C-alpha cells in the first residue's frame, strides 16, 4: 500500500510538472468553487433562519393575523404558562416639517421582544447598545435612513398621524426584520399605547397584527397543537422552524436559481475535465504498462490510479471550497443584505458538499479510464502504440452523465424543473453546435479563396480539421458568454422598458387609506396640483376574502401554485366602477350596462382568473367584514399594471358594494417642486399613506442591480469554465499541434508563419463563438421579452460587439499561453520530443 501511495504521489507530481494535470485540476476547482460559493451563501442565510428563528420572531412562536387578534388567544397562552406580547405593523407617512417619507411602523406592548434584542444608538456618541426593550410611551426609534430622509436627529419630534413623538433612539439592528428586499420603507418603532392617538388605523387600513409567544417548548407545542385547528381565516402560526416564510421562499428560489446557474459552469468544467483527462490518461498508460511489465498486478495499477484520483479530488475539492468560501463574501455582500441584515459566519456543511462533488465528478470521469488501464495489454510497452481510448465508448460517459443528472435533480428539487434545465442545456448546446458546424464550413469555403493567404487559409481550415474539438471549444465559450449576455440584456431591457413605457405625466404618487368624507377634498387638491386632471378618479377599496366558487368552499390547500395559495388566504381589494379603466382591455364577456349598476356582477383580471382557475360565468362568494356576497363573473380584463395607474383585480358595478364600508385610493401626478402641497395635505389628513412610485422604482432598480451583480458572480464562473474548456481542448491537442508545428518548421515555415496560422485558427474560433453566443442569447432574450416578460425586444448591438471584443482577446490569449512554448524551439528538438 505504501509503495502504491508513493508511486501514485510521484506520478501525480511529475504529471503536474509536465502540465498534464493543470487544466484537469483547474476545471475541477472551478466546478467546486461555483457550487460551494452558492452553497456557502444560501447556507449562511438558512443557518440564520434556523438558528435564530426566535430572534426573527421576537419570541418562540407568533400568531399573525390581518385583523385584531382575539383576546381568547392570549388568555389561552397564559393558561398554557406562556408569555404573550402584542405587536402591530402597518405602513404610514412619517413627517418632519416639510419632509415626508413612507415608513413601516411597528408598535409593541411593554413585553416585546420576548426573545432577542435590538441594536439601538441612544446618544450622539454612536455607541450601539443591545437592548431587550422597546420605545417608551411618547417616543420612537427610527432607522438611520429615515433619519437621513427626514433630517431628524436624536431628540427631534417625528410627526406620526395626529401626534408628534420624540426620536429617542436610532435603530441599527432589528433581527425580527428582513433586509431591504422585504421592507421598502424604513422602520419606525413605537409603543402600542400611542397608536390610537395617531389616528392612523382607520377602516380599511392594512395592519399586521401579531401575538408573540414564548415559553417552555413542550407547552408551546401543546398550545400550537391545540390552537392550529381553531385558527380563523387570515390567521396563521409561525414558529422558529417556519419563521419568515417569505425569506425562506425567496431563499429557496435563489438557491435553485443560483444552484442551476452554477451547474452550467459545472457541466462546462466537466467537459473541460473530459478533454483534459486525455493527456493524463495517455501518460498513465505508459506507466501502467511498464509497471505491469515489472510484475505489478492489476490491483496495483487500480490502486495507484484510485489513490491518484482521490488525491486529485481532495486537492481540487479543498482548493475549490477555499475559493468558494472567498467568493461567497462577494455574493453575501451584494445579495445577502437583500435577505437578512446580519448574516452569520458560514458553517462547514458546504465543505462536505464541495468535497463530495469533487470526488463524485473526478471518479465519474476517471473510473472508466481506471478500468481500462487496469487491463492494459502489457505488450504495448514494446510496441509503444497506445491505442487505448476508453472515452470513445459512450458507455464510458455513463458515470459522468449520471453524476450531472443527479446533481441537476438535487439542485432543481422538482422533476419538471430538472427536466426543463436538462432539455434547455441540451437544446442550447445542439443549436450552438449546429451553428458552429455551419460557420466552420463557411470558414472552410472561405479558406479556399485565392484572396486569402495560404497561412491564414490553413489556420481557418483548422476549425474543420479538428471539427469535434472546435465545436466543443466554441460551445464552451459561447455558453458562458451567452448566460452573461442574457443577464445583461434582460436587466437592461427590463429597466428601459419600465422607464420608457411610462408617459411623462404618468401617476407618480398613490394615496391609500382615504376615508369616505375625505374623498371630495382630495379631489379638489389633486385638481389644484395637476391641471390635466379635471376629474380625478378616486376608487373605493372594499376588502373581502374569496370564500366560495360556484357554491363550493375554496381554500389554499386546493391549490399547488404559491400565488394562488396566497391570493386565497388573504383579502382582496374589490373596487366598483361604472366605466372600465381606459388602459384595460376586455378579453372575454361584456362590461355592465347602465341598468346593471347594482347587479351582483364581477369583472376579473385575466391573470388572477387563470391562477385561480376561474372562468366566465363562475359565481364567486366574498366575505366582506362578516357578510357574504355572491357575484357572477361577467368579464375578464387585461390590465397594464406597469402603466402605474390605479387598477384592481376584481371590479363590480358602481352600486353593487354600496352597502359595505370602503376606504378609497387614488393615483395622481405630482409635479416636481410641489411637495409642499402634498405635505400640507398630509398635515390635514394624517391617516393618508402616500406611496412614492418613483422612489419605489429606484429601490426596485437598486435591488435588481444588486441581484444582478450577485448573479454575475455565479455566471462569471460559466465564462471562466468556457475558457477552461477552450484551454483543455488545446492541451488535449498539444502533441498533435506540436507535431504539426515542428513539421511546418522543418518544411521551412517561419516562426511568424506558424504563429499566424495558429492565431488565425483561434481568431476564427473567437469570431464563431461570439456569433453563436450573440445569436443564441438574442434568440433567448427575444423569447423571454416577447412571451415571458412582455416587454419590447431590442437587439443590443453594443453588447454583441463587446462579446466579440472579449472573445478576440481571451481566446487567442488562452491559446497563446499553451502554444507559446514550442514556437521558439528548433524544429529538430520538436521532432525529437514527439
Amino acid at each position: 500500500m505504501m509503495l502504491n501511495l508513493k508511486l501514485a504521489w510521484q506520478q501525480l507530481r511529475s504529471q503536474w510538472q509536465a502540465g498534464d494535470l493543470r487544466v484537469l485540476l483547474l476545471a475541477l476547482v472551478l466546478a467546486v468553487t461555483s457550487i460551494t460559493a452558492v452553497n456557502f451563501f444560501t447556507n449562511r442565510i438558512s443557518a440564520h433562519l434556523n438558528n435564530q428563528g426566535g430572534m426573527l420572531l421576537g419570541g418562540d412562536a407568533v400568531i399573525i393575523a390581518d385583523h385584531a387578534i382575539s383576546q381568547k388567544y392570549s388568555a389561552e397562552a397564559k393558561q398554557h404558562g406562556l408569555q404573550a406580547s402584542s405587536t402591530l405593523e402597518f405602513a404610514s407617512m412619517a413627517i418632519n416639517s416639510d419632509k415626508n417619507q413612507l415608513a413601516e411602523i411597528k408598535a409593541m406592548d411593554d413585553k416585546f421582544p420576548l426573545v432577542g434584542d435590538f441594536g439601538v444608538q441612544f446618544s450622539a456618541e454612536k455607541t450601539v447598545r443591545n437592548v431587550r426593550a422597546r420605545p417608551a410611551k411618547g417616543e420612537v426609534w427610527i432607522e438611520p435612513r429615515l433619519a437621513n430622509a427626514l433630517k431628524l436627529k436624536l431628540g427631534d419630534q417625528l410627526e406620526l398621524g395626529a401626534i408628534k413623538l420624540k426620536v429617542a433612539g436610532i435603530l441599527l439592528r432589528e433581527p425580527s426584520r428582513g433586509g431591504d428586499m422585504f421592507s421598502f420603507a424604513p422602520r419606525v418603532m413605537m409603543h402600542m399605547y400611542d397608536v390610537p392617538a395617531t389616528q392612523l388605523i382607520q377602516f380599511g387600513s392594512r395592519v399586521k397584527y401579531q401575538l408573540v409567544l414564548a415559553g417552555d417548548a413542550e407547552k408551546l407545542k401543546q398550545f400550537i397543537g391545540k390552537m392550529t385547528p381553531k385558527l380563523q381565516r387570515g390567521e396563521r402560526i409561525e414558529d422558529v422552524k417556519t419563521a419568515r416564510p417569505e425569506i425562506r421562499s425567496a431563499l429557496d428560489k435563489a438557491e435553485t436559481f443560483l444552484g442551476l446557474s452554477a451547474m452550467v459552469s459545472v457541466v462546462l468544467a466537466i467537459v473541460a475535465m473530459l478533454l483534459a483527462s486525455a493527456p493524463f490518461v495517455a501518460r498513465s498508460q505508459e506507466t501502467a504498462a511498464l509497471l505491469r511489465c515489472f510484475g505489478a498486478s492489476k490491483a496495483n495499477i487500480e490502486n495507484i490510479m484510485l489513490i491518484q484520483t482521490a488525491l486529485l479530488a481532495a486537492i481540487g475539492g479543498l482548493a475549490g471550497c477555499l475559493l468558494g468560501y472567498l467568493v461567497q463574501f462577494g455574493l453575501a455582500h451584494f445579495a445577502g443584505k437583500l435577505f437578512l441584515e446580519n448574516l452569520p459566519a458560514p458553517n462547514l456543511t458546504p465543505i462536505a458538499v464541495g468535497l463530495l462533488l469533487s470526488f463524485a465528478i473526478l471518479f465519474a470521469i476517471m473510473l472508466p479510464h481506471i478500468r481500462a488501464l487496469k487491463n492494459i495489454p502489457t505488450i504495448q510497452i514494446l510496441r509503444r502504440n497506445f491505442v487505448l481510448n476508453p472515452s470513445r465508448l459512450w458507455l464510458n460517459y455513463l458515470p459522468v452523465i449520471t453524476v450531472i443528472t443527479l446533481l441537476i435533480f438535487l439542485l432543481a428539487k422538482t422533476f419538471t424543473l430538472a427536466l426543463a434545465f436538462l432539455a434547455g442545456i441540451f437544446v442550447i448546446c445542439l443549436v450552438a453546435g449546429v451553428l458552429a458546424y455551419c460557420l466552420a464550413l463557411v470558414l472552410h469555403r472561405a479558406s479556399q479563396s485565392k484572396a486569402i493567404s495560404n497561412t491564414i487559409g490553413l489556420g481557418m481550415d483548422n476549425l474543420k480539421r479538428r471539427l469535434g474539438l472546435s465545436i466543443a471549444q466554441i460551445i464552451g465559450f459561447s455558453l458562458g458568454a451567452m448566460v452573461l449576455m442574457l443577464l445583461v440584456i434582460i436587466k437592461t431591457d427590463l429597466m428601459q422598458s419600465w422607464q420608457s413605457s411610462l408617459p411623462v405625466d404618468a401617476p407618480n404618487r398613490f394615496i391609500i387609506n382615504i376615508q369616505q368624507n375625505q374623498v371630495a377634498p382630495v379631489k379638489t387638491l389633486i385638481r389644484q396640483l395637476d391641471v390635466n386632471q379635471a376629474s380625478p378618479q378616486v376608487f373605493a377599496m372594499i376588502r373581502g376574502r374569496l370564500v366560495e366558487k360556484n357554491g363550493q368552499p375554496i381554500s389554499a390547500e386546493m391549490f399547488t401554485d404559491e400565488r394562488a395559495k396566497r391570493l386565497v388566504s388573504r383579502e382582496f381589494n374589490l373596487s366598483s366602477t361604472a366605466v372600465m379603466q381606459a388602459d384595460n382591455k376586455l378579453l372575454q364577456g361584456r362590461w355592465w350596462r347602465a341598468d346593471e349598476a347594482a347587479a351582483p356582477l364581477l369583472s376579473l383580471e385575466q391573470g388572477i382568473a387563470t391562477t385561480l382557475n376561474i372562468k366566465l360565468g363562475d359565481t364567486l362568494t366574498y366575505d366582506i367584514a362578516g357578510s357574504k356576497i355572491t357575484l357572477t363573473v361577467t368579464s375578464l380584463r387585461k390590465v397594464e399594471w406597469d402603466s402605474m395607474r390605479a387598477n384592481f383585480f376584481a371590479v363590480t358595478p358602481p352600486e353593487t358594494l354600496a352597502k359595505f364600508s370602503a376606504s378609497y385610493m387614488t393615483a395622481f401626478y405630482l409635479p416636481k417642486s410641489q411637495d409642499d402641497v402634498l405635505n400640507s395635505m398630509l398635515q390635514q389628513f394624517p391617516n393618508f399613506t402616500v406611496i412614492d412610485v418613483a422612489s419605489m422604482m429606484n429601490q426596485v432598480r437598486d435591488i435588481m442591480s444588486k441581484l444582478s451583480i450577485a448573479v454575475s458572480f455565479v455566471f462569471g464562473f460559466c465564462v471562466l469554465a468556457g475558457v477552461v474548456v477552450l484551454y483543455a481542448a488545446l492541451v488535449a491537442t498539444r502533441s498533435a499541434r506540436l507535431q504539426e508545428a515542428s513539421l511546418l518548421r522543418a518544411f521551412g515555415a517561419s516562426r511568424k508563419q506558424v504563429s499566424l496560422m495558429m492565431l488565425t485558427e483561434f481568431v476564427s474560433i473567437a469570431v464563431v463563438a461570439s456569433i453563436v453566443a450573440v445569436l443564441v442569447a438574442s434568440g433567448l432574450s427575444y423569447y423571454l421579452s416577447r412571451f415571458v416578460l412582455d416587454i419590447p425586444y431590442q437587439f443590443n448591438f453594443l453588447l454583441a460587439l463587446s462579446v466579440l471584443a472579449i472573445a478576440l482577446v481571451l481566446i487567442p490569449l488562452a491559446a497563446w499561453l499553451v502554444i507559446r512554448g514550442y514556437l521558439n524551439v528548433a524544429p529538430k528538438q520538436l521532432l525529437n520530443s514527439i
Partner: protein
Amino acid sequence: MLLSESESEYKLSLTHQPKKSTLIKNTSAILVTNLSKYVGEGANKIEILNGLNLQVAQGESLAIVGSSGSGKSTLLALLAGLDVPTSGAVEIGGQPFSALDEDARAAMRGGQMGFVFQSFQLLPTMTALENVMLPMQLANKKDAKQLAIETLEKVGLAERLQHYPKQLSGGEQQRVAIARAFAPQPAILFADEPTGNLDIATGERIIELLFSLNQAANTTLILVTHDVQLAQRCGRTLTLQHGQLSAI
C-alpha cells in the same frame, strides 16, 4: 551529442557476485512448444508465429534476429508473458507460463525476469535509484535499496543516484535501465533492441556492460535485434522468418 560524460570511465566492479537463480535447475530456462500467434480473422488473418519451438538453457545467451515485421517483438512478448499465444505453450523453469492468467504472469515476471527496452522506459517521476528499486519493491524485496545502489555503482552511476531521467544522457538512461534489469537478480533477461536509440559508440559500451553483467550473473539472456553484429556476441543466434526460427 547527448553523451557528455565519459562513458568509458565507469568501472565494472564484480566483487559482489549476484546470487544465481536457484529456481531453474536441471531443466530448460525457457521451453517453447508449437507456439503460434495469429492476428485478424478469416481472409484478414495474419500468421506472425507459426508452430514455433524453442529451448533455451539456463545461463545461455540467445539472439533473435530478423527483419522489421518478422515478429521478433511478438515472440519476445510471448516469452515474457506480455502477450498470450493463439496456440502452443511457453514454460519457464519447467513451469507452465503462457497458460497462467495475467496477474500470475505479472507476478512471475516480477520475480524472475528483467527487461531492457530500446526506449529505456524509465519513469520520469523517479530518480535513477528509485527506478532501479521499483521492480524489487513490486516484488516486495526487503533489500531493494541496497541492491539498487550496488547495481548502479556497478554500471558506473554511483554519482547519479538522485538524478532524474531527464537529467541523464541517453547512454546513462540505458545504464539505469540495465541496472534496473539486473538488480533483482533475474533468471532471464529480455532485451529488445537495447542499442536502437543510441549512437554507435555509446551502443557498444552499453553492450559491453550488458554482456559482462550477464556473464557475471549467469543470467539467461534473450536479445532481440536486427543488428547481426550485436547478435553475434550471443552464444547462439536464431533468425525469425515466416513465423519460424532457424539457426544461422
